[in-house]
């Protein structure tokens, strides 16, 4: 009644696969620092040619309604200003970050953030900015700037941020 069965089994105990490439993330994180941390030197906010001026005075971000990527009138006004600044400062390129609030699944929010970033890029390109100066990325709900769980925070987190970076076309 004894039966024998041999099972060869390999089990792995895994060590750390150390990741050596520090990723470029975190731009747009941090409630006050906002974007641009990974980008060009900020410069003085009073210098209209500085990325800091872009961030503070031109306005580096636009906001969206729940689940939407449509640009509001207010967003269009901000983006028209961004386009003018980019026209005047051709030495800069930009990464447009799309973000979502936490009211959605991780994967859907990544796709939604991609849509929002693309909507901003399309608008800027339509305003005459060369497409090769603009890259897009979605952070989904991974990098909220406001951390409360109600609409006042969600409204600020549903955003696309134009992060100015130095250098030629990408």
């Amino acid at each position, binding site marked *: *009644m*004894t039966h*024998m*069965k*041999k*099972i*060869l*089994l*390999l*089990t*792995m*105990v*895994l*060590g*750390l*696969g*150390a*990741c050596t*490439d*520090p*990723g*470029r*993330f*975190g731009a747009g*994180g*941090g*409630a006050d620092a906002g974007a641009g941390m990974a980008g060009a030197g900020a410069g003085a906010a009073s210098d209209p040619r500085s990325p800091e001026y872009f961030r503070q005075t031109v306005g580096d971000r636009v906001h969206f309604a729940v*689940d939407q*990527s449509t640009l509001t009138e207010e967003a269009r006004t901000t983006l028209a200003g961004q386009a003018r600044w980019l026209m005047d400062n051709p030495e800069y390129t930009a990464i447009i970050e799309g973000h979502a609030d*936490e*009211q*959605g*699944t*991780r*994967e*859907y929010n*990544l*796709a*939604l953030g*991609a*849509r*929002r*970033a*693309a*909507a901003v*890029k*399309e608008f800027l390109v339509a305003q005459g900015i060369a497409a090769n100066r603009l*890259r*897009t*990325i*979605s*952070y989904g709900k*991974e*990098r*909220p*700037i*406001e*951390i*409360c*769980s109600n609409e006042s925070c969600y409204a600020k987190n549903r955003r696309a941020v134009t992060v100015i970076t130095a250098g030629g076309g990408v």
Partner: protein
Amino acid sequence: MTCLRILSLVLVLSGLAAGGLTSVSAQENPGPLRIIIDEGVIEPLPFAVPDFIAENGAAGEYSTRIARVIAADLQGTGLFREIPKEAFISTLTSFDAPVQYADWKAINAQALITGAVHVGAGGRLTVKFRVFDVFSGAQLGNGLQFSGTTGSWRRMGHKVADAVYSRITGEGPYFDSRVAFIAESGPKNARKKRLAIMDYDGANVQYLTDSNAIVLAPRFSPSGDRLLYTSYESGFPRVYLLDLATVRRQVLDDQPGTMSFAPRFSPDGRTVLLSLSVAGNTDIYSYDLTTGQRRRLTSAPSIEIAPSFSPDGRQIVFTSDRSGSSQLYIMPAGGGEARRISAGRGRYNTPVWSPRGDLIAFTKQSKGRFHIGVMRTDGSEERLLTSSFLDEGPTWAPNGRVIMFTRETAGAGGTSALYTVDITGRNLRRVPFDGAASDPAWSPLSR
């Protein structure tokens, strides 16, 4: 800094001749000791698992620990209730001594699990066990014996518990399995994330990446030897394939200007489904791991994401917002016309086909709450199993009976944890892990 240890373990299963007792095959005579899980309210079945008998000095440290793993596995299902050893009348002195059924009946132990451990030459640990149906006064199934390295003692406990669970419930085993997940730390607006793997019960945590790049949503290959996950290590989200034995990783489908995420293996492990965002539009693609060929499976201006194969590999369930809100659809494995299956109010996401093929688990957002639910593959018989501020991302236990998912709490201090729930909606439990955790992926049964 990459280190890797491979531990080879041979498990020998052997039927034990029951000394003086009649061995009964579980199939031939399951006896009255049986839990039918789908019956309404379940009174947990009382069981006793005395410390395993240490057959030599070196085995002493495992006699209690292995019994504790078995007890925790069984009790964790919500289907069994352990009788504490303070209540025991009988003392076991030898693995082959006749069982004093009256003593176990008196304390209402319906199932009795006895076992012995032995550490032999070269640190080889041998565990043997028997299960008894106390009220029938008979052994339930054959005794079995496992052996391996002492370092694998927890796995042996899981294997014993799996055998007991399967014999009594008739369901497939799942305790000897692992979970890949994202270990989280730091505040909500600067969360650090690391890819990690642990036993299904939270033991033996190992980290697979550091926290320099955001990592998301690992998925196991069908044989459990590889992981897919999404990482921002290039600066942009990309799907990576990690070989667990070599800890080597490769990026899949590295197209500049695009983002790839939400990957999943095909049942044969040769193809990966992923979601690719190009110019803001996200569609589903398949990627052949052998040829590197990419094939577009959906092409719509709406968001198409989160594909999951049926176990037979013939169909794909996925999310689309083509109707104006996220809903679940099924299409043929090669793409083509999709039919919507989700019919309720609310938004549906992250569909995952059950390993048994009968159900689809999903995340549902409705009236400001999140739920994990299941439905039949035609969308009928939708049942919501959980409800909270934020539940998402179901993953199936290898036997298709239990679902693990992420639960996140609200507010500035909100954190994530892993939970399990039975597909009946009972037995909601937090998976032990010292820290915040999200995005679980349950492995297939270890082999």
